[in-house]
């Protein structure tokens, strides 16, 4: 009910007839202006300076570190600790050159690894979650309830706790310190399975599946050709959650990887940060690296913003 992704459970009768996909993209499950008119006439719409000021203060707080890194990345190593911290300088190009030249382009390698782990891991994870969600929502089979409850328990389990035993097991089979050590554990996303089940239940008309079966289409084909496209907006959200999850997970690659050519950016920057104590020039590299790695992400987030309007808790009420 707290979600726009499940119009069937939403309170607004007007949207229930529409397919979930379009209801989602309208960002609210009800028309944007649907409430402003009845909720109190002119008085309630009076602009409030205080309300605006509070929001802007929040925005300022959120922008501060981003502004700082933009400025700091333009400073030479000497200036970083000497000139006023928010006064820009002219060394951005040099710093970028140094960053990309650092140990024959190690940073570029880290960036590539990050894309592999976060995009690759999240893509496979989304496919696995979509299939499981579809299976749970549209099929009856023995053990289904048990499986779903176990998955739900997995949602509440802090994944980071698994890092040490996962490492020990991966070391046992000789996979520690390889790409697989970070990629494989990233495939499982209990929360993604849970969301996919909700999306599948809400967006796939059963009659359509039955009709396709009657026409003789195979089960896998029905899934790929009909179910996946209908679940797509929800799957983008599942992908984004997992993408952020992998990109944010520091402990797993930190534990699993010893060879710095396999590091993602996060682990790489943290090792450079540790070197800063003995070589302060390294801080400039860290700062420039931080800037280069967050800019594309911020751009990506702005582009995909509407997919974040969905829920975290949709099933909290439904389930």
């Amino acid at each position, binding site marked *: 009910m707290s979600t726009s992704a499940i119009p069937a459970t939403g309170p607004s009768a007007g949207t229930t007839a529409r397919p979930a996909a379009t209801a989602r993209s309208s960002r609210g499950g009800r028309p944007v202006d649907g409430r402003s008119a009845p909720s109190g006439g002119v008085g309630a719409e009076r602009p409030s300076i205080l309300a605006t000021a509070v929001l802007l203060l929040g925005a300022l707080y959120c922008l501060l570190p981003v502004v700082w890194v933009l400025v700091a990345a333009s400073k030479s190593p000497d200036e970083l600790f000497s000139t006023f911290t928010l006064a820009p300088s002219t060394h951005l190009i040099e710093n970028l050159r140094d960053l990309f030249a650092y140990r024959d382009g190690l940073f570029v390698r880290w960036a590539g690894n990050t894309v592999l782990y976060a995009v690759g891991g999240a893509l496979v994870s989304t496919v*696995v979650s979509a299939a499981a969600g579809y299976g749970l929502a549209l099929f009856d089979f023995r053990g289904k309830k048990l499986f779903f409850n176990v998955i739900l328990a997995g949602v509440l389990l802090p994944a980071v706790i698994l890092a040490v035993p996962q490492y020990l097991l991966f070391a046992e089979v000789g996979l520690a310190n390889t790409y697989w050590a970070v990629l494989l554990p990233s495939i499982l996303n209990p929360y993604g399975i849970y969301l996919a089940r909700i999306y599948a239940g809400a967006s796939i008309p059963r009659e359509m599946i039955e009709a396709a079966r009657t026409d003789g289409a195979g089960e896998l084909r029905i899934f790929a050709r009909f179910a996946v496209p209908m679940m797509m907006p929800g799957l983008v959200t599942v992908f984004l959650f997992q993408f952020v999850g992998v990109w944010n997970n*520091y402990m797993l690659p930190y534990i699993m990887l010893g060879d710095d050519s396999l590091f993602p950016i996060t682990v790489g920057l943290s090792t450079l940060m540790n070197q800063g104590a003995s070589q302060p020039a390294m801080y400039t590299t860290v700062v420039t690296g931080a800037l280069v790695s*967050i800019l594309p992400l911020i751009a990506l987030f702005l582009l995909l913003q509407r997919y974040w309007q969905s829920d975290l808790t949709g099933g909290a009420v439904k389930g």
Partner: protein
Amino acid sequence: MSSTNASTLRRRTDRFGYVFVAPAAVCFLAFLAIPILYALYVSVRREQVVGLGLGEGGRHQEWAGLRNYAQVLADPEFLGSAGRVLLYGLVLVPVMLGLALLFALLLDSKRARLRRIARITIFLPYAVPAVISSLLWGFLYLPGTSPFHFVADALGGSLPDVLSPQLVLLAIANIGIWGGTGFNMVVLYTSLRSVPGELYEAATLDGCSELQIALRVKVPMILPSLIMTCVFSIIATLQVFAEPMLLRPLTSSISTTWSPLMLIYKDAFTENDIYSASAGSVLVALATFVISFGFLRLVRGQAFAQEER
């Protein structure tokens, strides 16, 4: 799914359910269930050194019962780290969710200007991973690069060092607040948007002020979302690792065992004591379950009574 049609076709297609959940089930077993069982197993073992402990037979594993757990629970470092993280959570979760709720209500009230820009900007930190936000805030805390210290110095005053032992917990909590407020705000805002407008209409006709509507109508309506954001925040809090690890090079106030996960890491990889590390992992997982389920139980009656309207 309560179809009465039990034809063979139906049963045959239903068996395909297994095909679709199989990949997830395999991953669940391999990357979640087996590691947990393995951690449980290792946590009740210990290594015994025979003679000088050299060569093949120099060390062997044996049953240890709950001794590793007793040892971890009696370890002042573990207790200290647990205490710090609980305090950290008590600061982080209410402040972060309070801000998220405040911003969500302001966005929803339509009385603030520049709502779209504010919403996008406040959400922005979610794109920044904890490692990078920690090192950015680290520089903002460091007196040499902090704009706050620069301004204070210019005005002839001075600011306390937030990386000092007394304040470092707040410095770490601030990083979490910065990173999490926007995401939770979007979740709560989305939830607010799905509340039917008629409810406000009735409340307005009854003469409720906007603040009253916010507190008595809106907040109760989105209580389930608030509870879930709270549970997820608590779980994230107990796992804090990246923030203190990244601030460590900048200050001596953060020990190598500041948080339980840092202690587990140290046990496993610095001290090579996988037995204590496994017992510690199991304990933190248990504590997470107890706290999140306990919290859910505590608020449940209330939340779902609201839902039964």
